[in-house]
């Protein structure tokens, strides 16, 4: 009995020992900053001088801050614009490149290459592509007999421009995830369906789509969470403008903290973001648990 207990203890010690590297890193780089952020949200602080405790004032101002709500709206437009369309594109690419076509490896590499490109570098390339006077895209439009579009300089098109760039950037990554999901579907289902005379369309809706659902939901949730955290392409392409039309959540936080010296206020806004992301993570857990129970 005694012996067993000591063994249990040593197991526990060993477990902590094995977990230590991850735990230490997480504590330093995630847990500590989060706690610090939470606390900073209760202060008025310019980032350098003394902090003044002001309780919930930051949160109260945040609720009344029309600019903040405009930012929230922009973030949701961005998410609605990038997630469904980007996923649909990635799924199409994955379905095409799953087939044993010639040059499959080349196409996979090509579609994946934007993913490994730095977001800022890619953003700057898109700034050139979308330039009103000299950009390739407007040149092409003119060749085809269309009017030039003020992509980045008009508040009607700037968000669309950033969304286009983001879809292009992320399609390859989502494609790889879909490809992985597709490879887990046993070919026996398709063989059986073919014997039963199912069309490609039918076998997609009856086999691929339902069996791919866990992957789809995973990608969707991850994309939503990542989209909330969008910053680099906004910084590189539009700096949140024109007239704030591309100021999304994190860009707003950055602007408040590092341009406006309102670190306390920005921390409070970041806490709101954290809660939103936690909500979607919780949703993901709930949905996947339910799905596991169903299957």
């Amino acid at each position, binding site marked *: 009995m005694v012996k067993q207990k000591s063994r249990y203890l040593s197991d526990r010690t060993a477990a902590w020992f094995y977990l230590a590297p991850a735990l230490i890193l997480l504590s330093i780089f995630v847990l500590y900053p989060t706690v610090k952020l939470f606390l900073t949200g209760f202060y008025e602080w310019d980032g*350098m*001088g003394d902090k003044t405790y002001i309780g919930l004032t930051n949160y109260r101002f945040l609720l009344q801050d029309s600019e903040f709500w405009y930012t929230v709206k922009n973030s949701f437009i961005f998410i609605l614009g990038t997630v469904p369309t980007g996923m649909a594109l990635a799924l199409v690419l994955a379905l095409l490149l799953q087939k044993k076509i010639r040059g499959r490896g080349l196409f996979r590499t090509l579609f994946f290459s934007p993913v490994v490109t730095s977001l800022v570098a890619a953003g700057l390339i898109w700034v050139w592509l979308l330039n009103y006077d000299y950009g390739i895209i407007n040149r092409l439009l003119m060749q085809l007999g269309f009017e030039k579009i003020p992509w980045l*300089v008009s508040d009607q098109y700037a968000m669309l421009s950033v969304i286009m760039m983001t879809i292009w950037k992320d399609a390859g990554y989502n494609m790889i995830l879909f490809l992985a999901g597709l490879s887990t579907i046993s070919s026996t289902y398709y063989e059986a369906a073919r014997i039963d005379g199912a069309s490609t369309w039918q076998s997609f809706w009856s086999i691929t789509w339902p069996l791919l659902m866990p992957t789809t939901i995973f990608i969707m949730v991850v994309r939503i969470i990542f989209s909330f955290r969008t910053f680099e392409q906004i910084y590189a392409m539009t700096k949140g403008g*024109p*007239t704030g039309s591309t100021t999304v959540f994190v860009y707003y936080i950055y602007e408040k903290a590092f*341009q406006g*010296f309102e670190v306390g206020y920005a921390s409070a806004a970041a806490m709101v973001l954290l809660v939103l992301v936690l909500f979607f993570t919780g949703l993901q857990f709930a949905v996947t648990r339910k799905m596991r129970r169903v299957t």
Partner: protein
Amino acid sequence: MRRVFFSMITFLIGAPLLAAEVIELTFWHGIESPDSVRVLEDKITLFEKQHPDIRIRAQNYGAADQVSAKIMIAVAGRRPPDLMWWAPAFTGRMAKTGKIVKIGDLIARDPDFDATDIYQGLWDVSRYQGEIWTVPFDANNLALYYNKDHFAAAGINPDELNTWSDLLRAAEKLTTDNRYGFQIPMGNNEWTVWVWQTFLWQADGEFLTKENNWPAPAFDSAAGQAALNYWMDFVHKYHAANFSEPDAGYKTDDFVAERISMMINGPWNYGALKQAAAETGLNYGALFLPSAGPDYAPQDSGRRATNIGGENLFVFKSNPAREQAAWEFAKFVMSPAFQVDWALRTGYLPVCRSAQQSPQYQQFLAENPFIKVFADQMQYGHARPSIPQYRKISRLLGKQIERALYRKKSAADALNDAAASSTRILNKGRYR
């Protein structure tokens, strides 16, 4: 033999100790032009020769819009630079943090230093709550660039360009199918506000007022509306100007490529313009900014106005010896010897009278009429308030100006909204 050995040992141990007395100061700057950086390096070498116990390690902090984040992180990490080259508009902000040295104290302790040689207007932008916190490094202002060839072709006499109406009429004449007469800065950044303020002042307006010794916005006046409407009409009604790329009103690309005939900009592009003149035959000049004139300012006083810019030196708190060393460098920078060379080789304007009046600089102005316009215009220089809230107010105003330029709002609404938010910011803590 033994003695030699011991003296050698003493020397070997002692030499590094002696060397350790050399104070190495870190100096952050954002000077972009490689030519100007070379001038700075020469000057630092000279300073180190004059002060063998001080070393200056100059580091470029890169893009200007990143500086506030970088300095915030450096201060948080307790490794701020000793000296920093930055816009004087940050004086109030930085003074309030308690992380920089109050230059007024150093001046008070240094009876040999003649503060009256520096222009009063430049000291004014270096103040926070009445006391001097930063040191003028270089100065500039805004004037009207114009393309001499375009003016000649359109038959416009540059000397007759004195009011907003003159400017508008000239721009209309200069506008062709593939060229605009003028350019209005678009975007909500400091540049847009900086340029706009000159129009506000030209129309007899003020940026802030002080009622009961407390600052309040004053830009939402008839003068402010006239200035903003003038900009909007220039583009939307008369089609005589285009907008700059968003937040890039300072870029000279369109002017150099002759896609516009006039723009508002500063003297620091002199090198680039000279190069363009050599390469593409760009024939450029500079003019005083116009006054509003009777068509736009009912009680027109013919007021000329430009906006003083430039950079200041911020000295960060460390220890008395380092702060003193930093002050030595600051004095070196403000000295006429530095200011004349710096002005001659970079196009910046000197910060002290003795440099301005030196024969060498006067001869330079005679040979460089482009720079002379800016130097002469210094007398009409207004400055942005150096209160800690300035940046916030400027950002708010910039966003509203941008909205008006995009015709999302009327000029009156945009300015009133900016004024209302500014009042809230300024009144924070007023009744505490």
